């Protein structure tokens, strides 16, 4: 089974801090994704990557950046955390380039910015 591991289940940070959320997958998937999930808004795509060192903006990239130095690892960076970035963050991975394959999700990081 595919395993997508997010480094923290819960995280509390302060406004203005630089925050790193880490995600690792163990199935050699080409695609990796970062979403945030807020009540009533469903999942919104922040960034995705279809290959090492490649990244593309999703629907809400403002205030975020990403890094994919190795195929198995996709990091989400909040450059200067703000309270409106308090949310559940979900990482996902899938097979094969720009194709529609099922996505496999981690258990999420619930991030609170104080």
């Amino acid at each position, binding site marked *: 089974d595919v395993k997508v591991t997010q480094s923290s289940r819960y995280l509390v940070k302060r406004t203005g801090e630089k925050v790193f959320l880490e995600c690792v997958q163990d199935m050699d998937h080409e695609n990796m994704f970062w979403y945030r999930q807020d009540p009533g808004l469903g999942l919104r795509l922040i960034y*995705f990557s279809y290959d090492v060192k490649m990244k593309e903006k999703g629907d809400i990239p403002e205030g975020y950046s990403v890094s994919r130095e190795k195929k198995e690892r996709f990091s989400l960076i909040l450059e200067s955390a703000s309270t409106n970035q308090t949310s559940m963050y979900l990482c996902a991975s899938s097979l094969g380039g*720009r194709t529609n394959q099922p996505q496999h*999700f981690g*258990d999420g990081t619930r991030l609170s910015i104080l």
Partner: protein
Amino acid sequence: SQQGEEDPQALSIQEGENATMNCSYKTSINNLQWYRQNSGRGLVHLILIRSNEREKHSGRLRVTLDTSKKSSSLLITASRAADTASYFCASWMDSSYKLIFGSGTRLLVRP
């Protein structure tokens, strides 16, 4: 606005009953997926239906797709308490190379 909108937003049924959730989307799609999310966990892929398919089954799950109405439905038969979760539809558009998720249906199955 969300590409996919689920209906109802919340559903409460008795164990053993069937649960039906509906999803509508706005633009043409390549295919549509359904996911499940247990409280506090990530999403789990349930089933994928392609735009040229009308119906698909997987165990107690039945998914239909009506591209003329831009809608899909997920039926869970003989529900169990363990089916309690949120269910999301997600549509894939080749033009954008990404999945667009709806806001989900919260299902409660009472023992």
